[in-house]
């Protein structure tokens, strides 16, 4: 944690304030008719000692923070330390002004007043540094939290990509391997699509956000590759709301949802499968739903949000602090995943 006196500017300010404070009192006492010399010696020495006491308080608070609401404890410490300061002045500074009888008498008489003014000063300094440290601490927590969230996001993105890659990649390569012999033109096209798709998954952190139309292009690439793999079994329909094209959406958010739909759809039935994706812009919300068929006899949707979707939900939560942005429903053996993305 940074001390409030860590910067040179603050150090100078601290010294200047104390000096001004000492000179102000010396001038005040001179005005009351006391000797310049004695008052100057007294005030400079007393305030220098008080400044050192303050420094001690500021630094010790940095390491020993009082718990919440321990005001009595803080007051006791301040009272003790101030008393110590007072006795040092009484025994250490007083002998230097003893030659001036008038001033000496004033000094003895004002000891209690000095004590309470000094207590007020140390009290204020303690309070202010406590406030400073509390703010510093909060700032640090904030930074840590932001870092943790970023880490979580990165980890999730990494997971997302890891889940996606191997099976899809090797099967796609296998398809290309088959096409090279019989239909080289199509093989070349698929290599192109696969490259574009992989490039899209790799550009990540820099573009946390992207436009819906870009995200849809990416999903379309993925679907086109899957269609080559699965042939007649896979049909896709994308119904996009033209007005929503420029809406913002977290990069690669749709990918796991569509992947989930394909996995669910293609591996849970043996018939041809239609995956339907619809986008809509409604009251500052971009709403995207992905629909796939499933077999209620062998798949229990009560198993929750299922593979891949929990990470989507988590990501939405991290971005918007809302946990109701992903919903899943089943209608007539169709599994529907709906995502809502608030638009600013």
């Amino acid at each position: 944690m940074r001390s409030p006196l860590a910067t040179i500017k603050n150090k100078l300010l601290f010294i200047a304030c104390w000096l001004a404070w000492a000179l102000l009192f010396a001038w005040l006492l001179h005005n009351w008719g006391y000797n310049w010399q004695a008052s100057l010696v007294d005030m400079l020495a007393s305030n220098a000692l008080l400044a050192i006491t303050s420094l001690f308080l500021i630094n010790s608070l940095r390491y020993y923070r009082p718990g919440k609401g321990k005001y009595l404890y803080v007051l006791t410490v301040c009272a003790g330390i101030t008393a110590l300061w007072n006795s040092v002045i009484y025994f250490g500074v007083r002998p230097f002004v003893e030659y001036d009888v008038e001033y000496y008498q004033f000094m003895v008489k004002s000891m209690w007043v000095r004590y309470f003014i000094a207590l007020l000063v140390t009290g204020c300094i303690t309070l202010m540094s406590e406030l400073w440290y509390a703010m510093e601490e909060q700032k640090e927590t904030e930074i840590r939290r932001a870092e943790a969230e970023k880490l979580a996001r990165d980890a999730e993105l990494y997971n997302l990509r890891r889940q996606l890659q191997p099976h899809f990649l090797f099967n796609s390569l296998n398809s290309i391997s088959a096409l090279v012999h019989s239909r080289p033109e199509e093989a070349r096209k698929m290599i192109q699509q696969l490259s574009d798709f992989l490039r899209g998954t790799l550009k990540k952190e820099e573009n946390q956000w992207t436009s819906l139309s870009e995200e849809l292009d990416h999903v379309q690439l993925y679907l086109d590759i899957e269609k080559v793999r699965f042939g007649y079994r896979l049909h896709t329909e994308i119904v996009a709301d033209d007005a929503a094209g420029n809406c913002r959406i977290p990069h690669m958010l749709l990918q796991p949802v569509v992947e989930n739909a394909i996995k669910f759809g293609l591996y849970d039935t043996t018939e041809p499968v239609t995956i339907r994706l619809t986008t809509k812009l409604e009251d500052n919300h971009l709403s995207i739903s992905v629909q796939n068929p499933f077999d209620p006899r062998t798949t229990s949707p009560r198993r929750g949000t299922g593979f891949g979707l929990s990470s989507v939900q988590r990501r939405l939560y991290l971005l918007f602090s809302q946990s109701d942005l992903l919903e899943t429903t089943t209608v007539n053996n169709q599994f529907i995943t709906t995502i809502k993305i608030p638009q600013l």
Partner: protein
Amino acid sequence: MIRTIIIDDEPLAREIIKEYLQSYSNITVVEECNDGFEGVKAIMQHHPDLIFLDIQMPKINGFEMLELVEQPPAVIFTTAFDEFAIKAFENNAVDYLLKPFSQERFDKAIRKWLDTRDAGNEKSTQALLEQAGESPVQSQRIVVKTGSKIRIIPANDILYLEAADDYVKIHTSEGAFLKNKTMSYFEKTLDPQQFVRTHRSYIVNIQLIHRIDPYEKENYLAVLTTGAQVPVSKSGYTRLKTVLGI
């Protein structure tokens, strides 16, 4: 003439196997199948010498399909990426091809099979299936065949399992099904937090236990919510208590 069947849900994956087979005049593809159901039917109908089998397929995977065939033919597995499957293959005589594979690798698999075909591969296929059962998919469901129908029983629908000679009888609310496996196989593959072997001949789904009654000395009877009664031995009772935390 060697007769073979290709089972894979991706048309292009089947195409490449056919292409690689062109150089073998003595091997003929008698049928191509899209999924495990078609696969079982085709194997029963044609009794091929060799099959090329994909692992990840719709509904039932390649291993589950093989379990449904009484006398499985020789198998060369093809898979893109499947940690569990690959683990099962290591140290096993059955060959597997990792997609995408080359003609050379393919030829090697065929040669290996031709060399060992007379030695009898059935044992290694059986051993492979035992090991493959440890994959997460197979701990969540059991695939059975009744007549020509194939049923997928989700683990949650199982009431209890009962040993029956060489088979295991799987009791569900819709009746009992036989599966050619051992009790210890199921004890190993099913989720141990949900399925407990209460008796030498019984494994019970503890989520469905309604109450446990004493029965004769040191023996108990678990009464399920459906009213079915399952014997619990002394050691089974100890195991049950551990899992239930009592």
